């Protein structure tokens, strides 16, 4: 997120998501604004509750990273065991998505082209680039030479014309 209004301490679930949740759970029910605000804060409390318990379970295990398994055990120990079936479904979806992503990236790496062919293409591109650079350098050198020649000729002719027209200079002095 590039722009952030509000400081770090006001970290909550977005109000819009909560409003949507309320609308879908209680269609055609009016909910007071301060009640909605309370719901937003209940989310934060719930997240901390689960995190804290999962963290303690994680610490007791020999792992350093809180895993989905720790979260599932936390739900169980906090009395939310009825959530576990659905949570496990989401976990399965996560694993499927991760697997697809890994496969896709390895497919992209190969692009169906064998490594030797990729190497050959690379060499070709390098050779072409080198050639272009050489041509460019040669052109620049040529231009420099031509410019130097012109400068020389200009200097030679101007000194010649200076000697010829020096008598006229005194007339031009008052301009």
């Amino acid at each position, binding site marked *: 997120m590039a722009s952030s209004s509000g400081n770090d301490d006001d970290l909550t679930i977005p109000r819009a998501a909560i409003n949507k949740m309320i609308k879908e759970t209680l269609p055609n*029910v009016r909910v007071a604004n*301060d009640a909605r605000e309370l719901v937003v804060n209940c*989310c934060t409390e719930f997240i*901390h509750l689960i995190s804290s318990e999962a963290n303690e379970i994680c610490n007791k295990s020999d792992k350093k990273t809180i895993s989905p398994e720790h*979260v599932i055990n936390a739900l169980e120990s906090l009395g939310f065991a009825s959530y576990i079936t659905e949570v496990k479904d989401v976990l399965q979806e996560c694993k499927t998505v991760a697997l697809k992503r890994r496969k896709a990236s390895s497919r992209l790496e190969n692009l169906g082209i064998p490594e030797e062919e990729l190497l050959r293409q690379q060499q070709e591109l390098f050779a072409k680039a080198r050639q272009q650079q050489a041509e460019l350098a040669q052109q620049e050198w040529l231009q420099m030479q031509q410019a130097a020649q012109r400068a020389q000729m200009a200097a030679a002719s101007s000194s010649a014309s200076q000697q010829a027209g020096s008598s006229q200079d005194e007339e031009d002095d008052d301009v």
Partner: protein
Amino acid sequence: MPGHKRRYNVRFPPSRIKKIMQKDTEVGRIAMAVPVIISRALEMFLKSLLTKTCLVTQSKLSGVVSVAHMKQCIESEKLFHFLKELVERVTSTTAQRDNRGLSVWPLYRRRSFTSVCNLFYVTLNF
């Protein structure tokens, strides 16, 4: 941001959930799937909280779900007792002046959340 595709079929942003989790300095590294499954657990939790609160609203023959109804629901349901202090803070007279229900979770765990601790001391003085 142009066309942000939803990577996972969850309702709440996993990136935001992760940030909220990491406000707790004790929480270290988090596997990628964790905020995603917490999003789903949160969804189920809210569904339960809202539905049960609405029952209170209906029992009061009210047309609008209010904070008072939520408070009654939270107090009557053991599973929601972790929200008791939050709702008490929100319904106290000082909160009505402030109208900011900041997280009271640290009170359970005694972590160092300076901003919340400051607010806590402020409310004690009234």
